[in-house]
């Protein structure tokens, strides 16, 4: 069975930044993602133990390398200054390439 290389973009951000990220994905015509609440420690201290608004959200998007780069760049420019965000990309293999491009 043939598997295709594609990128997985993982974004961990405070819960209040998530809608902005979803809008950004929509703008770039990326129509799929998976998300869930997480706790975490970072420069901005411990998050996820107190008020619900202080939780983190993890968002995972399978997407083409080109799209990944665009999103990462835009997040760095527009959201990073105001919100607690970390992100990374990695290589994954999928069976149905058409779904993610």
């Amino acid at each position, binding site marked *: 069975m043939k598997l295709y290389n594609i990128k997985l973009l993982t974004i961990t951000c405070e819960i209040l930044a998530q809608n902005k990220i979803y809008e950004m994905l929509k703008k770039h015509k990326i129509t799929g993602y998976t998300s869930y609440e997480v706790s975490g420690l970072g420069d901005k201290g411990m998050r996820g133990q107190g*008020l619900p*608004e202080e939780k983190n959200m993890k968002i995972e998007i399978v997407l083409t390398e080109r799209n990944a780069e665009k999103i990462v760049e835009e997040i*760095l*420019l527009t959201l990073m200054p*105001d*919100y607690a965000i970390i992100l990374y990309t990695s290589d994954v293999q999928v069976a149905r390439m058409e779904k993610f491009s």
Partner: protein
Amino acid sequence: MDIVEIVQANLLTPIVLFFILGVVAASIKSDLRIPEQLSAFLPIYLLAAIGLHGGLEMRKSGLEHLAIPIAVAVALALVITVNHYQILRRLGKFNIFDSYALASTYGSVGAVTFSVGLSFLKNQNISSEGYITAILAVLEPISLIFSIFLVNMAVEKELKRRKEPFSKITKQDTKTEIVHDVNNGTNIDSDTKNKAVNIREILRETITGKAIIILLGSIVIGYVIGDHGFVSIKPVFEDLFFGALVIFILEMGILAGQRLSDIKKVGPFLIAFAVLIPTFNGTIGVIIANYLGLSIGGAVMFGVLFASASFIAAPAVLRVAIPKANPSLYITSSLGITFPYIIIALLPILLIISTTFHNLSSISLFG
């Protein structure tokens, strides 16, 4: 009953004691917590109960008394929000974002503090006008919306003056600075357009926020069903109210206790602000309410509206609306200082003031 007695009686209520228990538990790093989903549900429940109660009372007393107190309250809320802003920006030297965020935190109303106020009065066997709940519902979004407008206008002005990205206005860590250099110049226009869209979205979110919807909805439902329709749901929405409040207050105590160490960080100015402003606003509220002809208890509740600072609804909105403001400032001061100050000390003080004024005006009426 003199002030010492009232304060003493108030100190020994379940609400204050469970709050203290929460603070203590958090201070000694106990793992005591109210599970998240339950503490997310409790404010919804409390607001529903408050709303139903208010609606039932308004059905009895009619709607004709409503217009003036609401109008006065809205005007007052706007005035004090601007007043807060001036104090914070000029005297407190806070940046524009923190000033607006704090101004609107203290200009908005706290539904939990309102609940504690009701419980305090019930403890003293004093009643209050049901329609104050309607004022709560109207005020809930007003100050937030007002602040969002103000902060956006202010930022706009700054932008024009400086012709550079508005994020520069606030002090930034070096990393951000670098990022924004890239962002320079070309993006300003799209930024401004984006913001127009954003403001509309933020306003929509503020008005449709769960607190406002459940409160308004419950007032209407309470008004419609009347005492007869309320009977079957009374055990849940009335009898359990104070017990549920106590459980929620325990969790608030834990959250406040977790922030004890942050209090030092907010600085002496904000600590003083978090005590004096509620005292001032609350007193003004009580006095005005007295002139509006409200009862002793009603005037206290009217005062509580202005004394209280929102530590659930406001932070949720502000974090989105003014992301450049530092949330630990407004959450720590409202939850860690103002809330305990009000429930422990200010409620009895407002009651004394209300009683005094009431007696004065009765005397002057007949004197």
